[in-house]
């Protein structure tokens, strides 16, 4: 009970702050986040530029705000894609079993055996570097993990008696799956989704490091961090600022995820 509220409060505050930053960025940023000015590169923080400027003379504070929109958007969209695909595969293979499970299982194992980020790398090269390309590629890369978790929990849920009760009522398999099985995968899926959120932000960053992230000049925290790396000595704030926001966001998402899981579980919610 006490833990639940602490999760909710801290997680909610952190995510609230990050979301507020993103919403504000949609309406206003101190400067144009993609406007370069080669005469004022790598400036330290000042009254004019609160967090200084980056290697192209762009205002770091503005980029952080704009980056919140992109990073959160890309991460959320990617998680949704991964969940949609993963849940569909997981439900199908867990519930139907038999050859469906075998085939999907082999496909899933194949995808799992691919290092996730390399799968994304390959797909990105095919789809092309665009925001939706990143979303699709990372989404596909993480879907097998979701599928595995969902399948696991479906396998245990389908043994519960209320599923059999639904069959005994004459309900169709599809109805049973959607009405009685799907909602119960929520808890593990939420926990996974919050971890995914963090992984996606970091993966986008690693992709940027390898030169394949969200296309510049759009700012994401990940590509800011990746491109700030060479200037770690001269302009530490350039890395620390997006790094801190990522950490804050991840902590917030994870805490909120825990809280949400507890809330969604009617047994603990009362």
């Amino acid at each position, binding site marked *: 009970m006490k833990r639940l509220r602490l999760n909710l409060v801290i997680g909610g505050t952190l995510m609230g702050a990050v979301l507020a930053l993103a919403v504000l960025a949609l309406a206003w940023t101190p400067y144009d986040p993609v406007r370069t000015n080669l005469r004022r590169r790598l400036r330290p923080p000042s009254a004019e530029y609160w967090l200084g400027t980056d290697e192209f003379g762009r205002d770091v504070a503005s980029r952080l705000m704009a980056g919140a929109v992109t990073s959160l958007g890309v991460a959320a969209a990617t998680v949704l894609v991964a969940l949609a695909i993963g849940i569909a595969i997981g439900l199908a293979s867990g519930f139907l079993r038999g050859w469906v499970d075998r085939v999907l299982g082999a496909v899933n194992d194949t995808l799992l*055996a691919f290092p996730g980020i*390399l799968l994304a790398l390959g797909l990105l*090269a095919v789809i092309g570097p665009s925001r939706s390309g990143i979303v699709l590629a990372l989404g596909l890369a993480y879907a097998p993990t979701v599928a595995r978790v969902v399948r696991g929990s479906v396998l245990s849920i389908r043994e519960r008696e209320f599923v059999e009760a639904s069959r005994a009522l004459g309900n169709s398999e599809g109805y049973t799956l959607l009405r009685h099985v799907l909602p119960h995968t929520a808890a593990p899926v939420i926990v996974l989704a919050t971890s995914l959120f963090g992984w996606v932000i970091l993966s986008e960053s690693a992709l940027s490091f*390898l030169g394949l992230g969200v296309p510049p000049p759009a700012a994401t925290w990940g590509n800011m961090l990746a491109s700030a790396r060479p200037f770690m000595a001269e302009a530490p704030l350039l890395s620390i600022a997006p790094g801190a926001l990522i950490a804050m966001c991840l902590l917030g998402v994870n805490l909120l995820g825990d809280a949400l899981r507890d809330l969604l579980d009617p047994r603990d919610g009362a």
Partner: protein
Amino acid sequence: MALYVLKRLLAAIPTLLLVAASVFFLMRLIPGDPALLILGDAATPESVADLRAAMGLDRSLPVQFGLWLSQVAAGDLGLSITSGEAVGPLILDRFGVTAAIVLAAVAIAALVAVPAGMLAAWRQGSWGDIAAVSLATLLLSIPSFWLGLILLLVFGLKLGWVPVVGYVTFAEDAWAALGYIALPVATLALVEIGVLIRMARASTIEVLRLDYIAHARAKGVPEHRVLLRHAFPNAFAPTLTLLGLVLGNLLGGIAVIETVFTLPGLGRLLVEAIFARDYPVIQGVMLFIALVYVGVNLVVDLLYPVFDPRVAAS
């Protein structure tokens, strides 16, 4: 037992075939031409065509795939089209580096994180628990390429404790080798500690609720022994499964760390091969990674009954 292992390996064949086919065709879908990359901006259409013919890339895709598969079936992964080296030995050579780092890092991470996670679970809700969870989250939110460079700057440059670049194998000079892999291992271990603490904590919390823990306590078993003898094996079993997944993935996926620390590992080999469109190397490495993945999970499954005898291997 041997039969079981054999069966499992046979069962992995469809997966490996699927991996082989998808890698092969995915790579050909990607724009980019190895011949063009070798010849660069000075390439002429004729020189590109010549080179493609020399690399055997002028044949139709199904033919190329068939040739490659029959080659692989005969145990030959072919030659790198950029360096002409045999892919099989190349992979084994590079894998040594990656395996050394990953195994050391995961072992260290497990040695630190599992006890930490278990203690956090044991004192769930205490300040120590909160500290452990926050530390885990913090570690989870630092990209490894960034953490790696920080460590490099601090321990390599500022303090000069370890060399910044280079690598020797343990066979050559064990002490020097230690110095070279210390930082990459530390980087990877720190990242993994974040993952493992959370995992170990969650499964220990589950286990500590069970009756046999109360039973052990009711027998007068001291707490340290309760944790060590009764909670640990049971809490570790699910962690082991995830550890297998993580390990399988890492063994092919630490390209970023290998790049930062200039290590001749498998991940860097793969990324560089992708950038160079070195098809035989990419295909070979991916097949190898898939095999490692299957192997690691097999080992995990074989180890599992040690921690959870309910799951007997055969």
